[in-house]
């Protein structure tokens, strides 16, 4: 049989190689989302805290919608939605749609972490900075942000690790990340173990992230 012949041709290393390629795509989604969503989240956080009501209302509604619906649905809506109402979205590739959906989704979650951190800062820190003559910008960047950074590291680590695993949702619009590659193998070659093996890729990468975050936390552990 044809299929059995193919199965014999796949060596262990070949399978790992293909999974590795799939994982590269996983990492690409992860990295791009992180780079785009971290600053965008800060913008949304400022929006949510704005004294200008329409902006505040807009930001909070966005966060409500994004956090209130499943990411898998958001990916589908972003990829198929515009076409359904007659927009030309040929410029948006599958990969592009995934990045867009992930960025918006994670910016919303990050924005709430930022907001929590910024709002947890006591008023006295701002007042002390102002009394010493600092501008609002100086007080925010030199006094508030470094302290917020320390406070939000643990929840950020949590969210970022979740992002690594959420990338597997990209396959809903056929963007080939590691789970999709493994699934194909199980469908075509009747091999289940590569699918289970993907877990090791996630574990190893998240292990590294965990180490990175505990290092970052430790760097600021001397002050409280």
């Amino acid at each position: 049989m044809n299929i059995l012949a193919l199965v014999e041709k796949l060596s262990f290393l070949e399978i790992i190689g293909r999974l590795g390629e799939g994982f590269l795509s996983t990492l690409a989604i992860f990295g791009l989302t992180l780079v785009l969503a971290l600053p965008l989240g800060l913008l949304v956080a400022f929006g949510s805290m704005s004294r200008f009501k329409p902006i505040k209302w807009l930001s909070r509604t966005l966060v409500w919608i994004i956090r209130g619906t499943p990411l898998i649905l958001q990916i589908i809506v972003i990829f198929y939605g515009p076409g359904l109402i007659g927009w030309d979205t040929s410029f948006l590739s599958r990969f592009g749609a995934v990045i867009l959906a992930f960025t918006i989704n994670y910016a919303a979650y990050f924005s709430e972490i930022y907001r929590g951190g910024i709002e947890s800062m006591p008023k006295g820190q701002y007042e002390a900075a102002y009394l010493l003559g600092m501008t609002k910008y100086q007080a925010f960047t030199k006094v508030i942000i470094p302290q917020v950074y320390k406070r939000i590291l643990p929840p950020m680590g949590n969210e970022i690790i979740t992002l690594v695993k959420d990338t597997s949702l990209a396959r809903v619009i056929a963007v080939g990340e590691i789970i999709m590659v493994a699934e194909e193998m199980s469908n075509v070659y009747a091999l289940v173990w590569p699918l289970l093996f993907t877990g090791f890729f996630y574990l190893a990468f998240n292990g590294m992230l965990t180490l990175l975050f505990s290092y970052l936390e430790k760097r600021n552990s001397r002050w409280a």
Partner: protein
Amino acid sequence: MKVLEVKGVNKYFGSNHVLKDVSFSMEKGEVLAIIGSSGGGKTTLLRSLTFLERIQKGTIEIGGESIITDIEKEKKPSKYIWKEIESKKSKNNKDDNAVELEVDLSSTNKKTCAICNKLNSIKNHKFKKLVKIEDKEPTTVTLSSYPKDKELREKRLKMGLVFQEFNLFPHKTVVQNLMMAPMLVKKSMSDDSGINVVKVAITEEQAREKALEVLEQVGLSDKADAYPCEISGGQKQRVAIARALCMNPEILCFDEPTSALDPELTGEVLKVISSLKDTGVTMLIVTHEIMFAREIADTVIFLDGGRILEMGDAKTVIDNPTEERTKEFMNKILKG
């Protein structure tokens, strides 16, 4: 030379009149203590003088420079009549639902507050929505604008403030806490030629030199590289004093500097404040430590219910108060 002149300062929180026509002045090198029971407006006064709170009326002059002048110039009392909007349910006897309210705007700062208070005072009112139907005498409210942020920041440099809760920057070491603002904040000074005025912040070396010098003054040279969480409350407060001193303020203000400290630690902070008096620092101290105020202050102000009840030579006011309320307060404090 007068370094601070406060005239007719009024401050409201909503309809709550917190400072009522507070006026006093300070000479260079003078130490002034503000005493009084909690809720008397002491802290609010200090926060108003450092522009952390906005006053609604009055004049504040620092170093001969008028900073805030009569924000709220005049408000004539006026009469408003408010009436319930006709709702479907109360088609009949509409007029019974109309309520006349007289609002005297001279006594409160915001007309909405005045109206809310009026409404609250009417029992069982069922107003869902109110419309203003008549404005018999339009108010003449002239507001001169409160100084802008940038302007306030420059004026603020003349004032230093030591907070009750220290408010040190926890992510910086002691010496960094002291160096931070001097390195960031540009101050006007004449350049090398001595003619032009340039705005510059001092360099890191200069800031460090100054910081170490001031730390020596408050007796904390050995804690320069400690983080605020590694030192005691009394030491934190001394660092806070040193931090304020690094900006060379004309007036150093203290907001109950020992209230967050246990009795054992207050001594070291009071000692530092006393030593500053000897070096001629002008100080404005809000405090609960009456005996300390008696000892260190030249002048004492007794603030009660937002009003200056008594003001004068520290020992006279504390030993022989003239007002009943002051006597009562002193008796309570001194007898414990």
